[in-house]
């Protein structure tokens, strides 16, 4: 963990450093990244000048283009993955009660007897138009279902992030201020203990104490349409607490390590010699320079909060995206799995991109090649 600050900025630096040579290559490759293709068609020279003048805009455009390509690749991989799983929708849905006739009926009905490439292209044709089709199992519209589930997932993730990010950064700074003294050690031990326990276990502990024994918390955390906001908030209190405990340590330790790294540099020493208070130095001088690696870790944790919390959803009976996708994979409900997979991938890509851009904004040095 202590090596965080040293390795942390380096990849970011590397990415930014590589950006320009790579972008020059990319401009030569036509039509791959969509927005870039528009400008790329006008000519490599224009793109090169554009990159030089507006490095940030160029970077964003390029990343957007790449992410579209990445999403295609992801959809192909998900499709291939489902194909590779044993059994198709017809056999898994019917399960032990499958008769050859019933399997045949379903296969024909859904067109599973066609070759996979044809089925993929049909699906893709709908998806690019924003039509994700209907679930094979429930026959409900996938978009409508996902709309609800995604809303729930984001609701949970938002409040978990709202609490955990400031808390982690604040605790990280606090740990630096009291480095190697008692508060630092307490913060470290507690947050490491929390991250070391599996999330379902933390969940069960919280349920046991706050719902079963004290009876102060709402459980199960099921949310539904007719709930008021306060009811919803009270329902998600325990899952949010669990998620906060799970993601806290990672972000906190990274903040601490990154700031500590900056704290050893000459200008901080100068600030100290000027007679500034420790906390002021940390918050005003050290933190901005330590922001890049911290942002990356935060982005990863945010992505986790949206896409990786299926265990917490199950434990707290929370109707989020994770459970929806797992249910769909279980019966090979391809349209649902594809849509969920794409949304998850989009979140990862978007958050990572946002992290890179924020890092560059925070550190102007990264905008220009060395």
């Amino acid at each position, binding site marked *: 963990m202590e090596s965080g600050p040293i390795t942390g900025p380096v990849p970011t630096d590397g990415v930014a450093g590589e950006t320009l040579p790579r972008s020059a290559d990319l401009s030569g490759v036509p039509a791959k990244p969509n927005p870039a293709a528009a400008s790329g068609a006008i000519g490599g020279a224009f793109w090169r000048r554009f990159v030089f003048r507006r490095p940030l805009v160029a970077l964003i455009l390029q990343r957007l283009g790449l992410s579209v390509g990445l999403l295609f690749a992801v959809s192909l991989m998900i499709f291939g993955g489902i194909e590779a799983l044993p059994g198709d929708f017809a056999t898994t849905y019917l399960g032990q009660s499958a008769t050859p006739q019933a399997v045949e009926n379903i296969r024909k009905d859904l067109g599973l007897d066609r070759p996979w490439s044809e089925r993929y292209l049909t699906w893709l044709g709908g998806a690019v138009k924003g039509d994700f089709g209907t679930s094979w199992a429930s026959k409900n519209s996938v978009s409508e*279902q996902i709309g609800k589930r995604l809303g729930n997932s984001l609701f949970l993730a938002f409040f978990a992030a709202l609490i955990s990010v400031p808390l982690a950064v604040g605790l990280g700074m606090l740990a630096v201020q009291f480095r190697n003294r008692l508060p630092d050690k307490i913060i470290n031990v507690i947050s490491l203990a929390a991250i070391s326990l599996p999330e379902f276990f933390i969940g069960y502990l919280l349920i046991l104490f706050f719902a079963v024994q004290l009876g102060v918390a709402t459980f199960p955390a*099921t949310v539904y349409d007719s709930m008021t906001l306060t009811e919803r908030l009270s329902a998600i209190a325990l899952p949010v607490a669990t998620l906060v405990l799970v993601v806290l340590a990672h972000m906190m330790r990274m903040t601490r390590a990154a700031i500590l790294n900056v704290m050893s540099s000459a200008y901080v020493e100068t600030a100290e010699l000027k007679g500034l208070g420790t906390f002021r130095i940390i918050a005003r001088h050290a933190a901005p320079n330590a922001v890049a690696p911290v942002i990356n870790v935060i982005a990863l944790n945010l992505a986790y909060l949206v896409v990786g919390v299926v265990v917490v959803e199950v434990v707290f009976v929370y109707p989020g995206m994770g459970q929806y996708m797992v249910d769909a994979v279980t019966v090979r409900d391809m349209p649902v799995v594809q849509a969920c997979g794409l949304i998850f991938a989009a979140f990862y890509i978007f958050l990572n991109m946002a992290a890179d851009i924020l890092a560059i904004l925070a550190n102007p040095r990264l905008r220009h090649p060395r």
Partner: protein
Amino acid sequence: MSDYKDYLTRQVMLGKINRREFLGRAAAFGIAASTASTLFAVSAAAQEPKRGGHLKLGLEGAAATDSKDPAKALSQFLFVVIRTWGDLLVESHPTTGAAVPALAESWEPSADSMTWTFAIRKGVKFHDGKELTVDDVVKTLQRHTDDKSESGALGVLKSIKEIKADGGKLVLTLSEGNADLPLLLSDYHLVIQPNGGMDNPDAMIGTGPYKVASFEPGVRATFERNQDDWRTDRGYVDSVELIAMNDATARIAALSSGQVHFINRIDPKTVSLLKRAPTVEILTTSGRGHYVFIMHCNTAPFDNNDLRMALKLAIDRETMVQRILGGYGKIGNDFPINDTYALFPEGIEQRVYDPDKAAFHYKKSGHSGPVLLRTSDVAFPGAVDAAVLYQESAKKAGIEIEVKREPGDGYYTNVWNVQPFSTSYWGGRPTQDQMYSTAYLSNADWNDTRFQREDFDKLLLKARAELDEAKRTDMYRTLAMMVRDEGGVILPMFNDFVNASTKQVKGYVHDIGNDMSNGYVATRVWLDA
């Protein structure tokens, strides 16, 4: 157990409910001791039902992929949902298992039991205000028996040749005589829908005691009392809420914190812990589901009956009931029928663990080397442990079993009914005939032991048509002996259902028909303040 003598006329619908559960998830599963005291709802029946209140149930088995169409229902959760809003033509009696009238007021078979006439109840209203007619019934049955139907009841209704309305009555013509027909109509998929659900199968409109207020697949379902219910002996609470809780620990936490009144599927390992909670009552009911080790009778080395016999003798049934079912269950006797079935052939000697005899048969079979057993916890909860227990007990007989753990995903596609020796699970069937026809008839799709005997097939068909009960019982004894002594099924145990409720819940009926009071739990209980 002498209590079971009362049950001998039972013909109970116990069916497909558990199958899907075992496909997708290796969920924790409850099994219970069927003690006489809990088997009957004697004390509950003595109390005066109270009306009112909001009943909450936390149930395992829901998925986001759940369908609203009763024809396609496969999970425990949907089983209760359908029971709560819909009605069948015929129900099964909770303790005797006999067919009792529901939307069909009465019925009359022809002498050869090939033609059945059902009188449909008058003055029953659907939730949308329309009155139930015989046409709705005809359309419902047609929808479920259509060739292209995806109905879970399709197999049960195969023998129905013609469905028609005649002078306000329903007339069913069968392709062969079947004295069990009314019970077949108690399959939970067959709820009567307006116009048979042909217009809108997903409408969730029926004649049941509760109207569906909301339904979110895999999340929850809520119900309001149907004020126009045609029955007064059900639907005591004002509103019902079913919450999907697929995590066993979450269910237990929700029950012990009083957030829900009832939960299903309690892990046998935790029953004793849950019992200690002062507010909780454990509800156990015996069932017909059974855990099996299946050998293909036509595949070497299992085509040798001495090897099959050796393997049957090398399993320690008592230990398995104790260890795998936590003591909540009954030992099996290598045929798929227990004394909860009507016409149960009594007096068949119980097969016991006998390493010496097993060793004798093993030697006689001439087989050497390990026997490969494939298993997964998807087959039944604790299947891998059961396989290892089996391995140990067989070792004492000099039989080497090699246990191979298969991936749970796709187990029923790639292992069950494909590999020659594997673990599996069977839910029971309403009648002995159904059970044998489904899995032991030579040409049955699910003949997972490849048990192919012409004399067995002939006798089974003869028994189906036989009207003399004594003769029929005798035939079922012969059939049972064939399967027990020469079949490919090793049946160490029957599992029971374990549910739990808070002490507030009264009137729970221990229905031998199926789990959760045969799915009627929400309509039968009331809340004591």
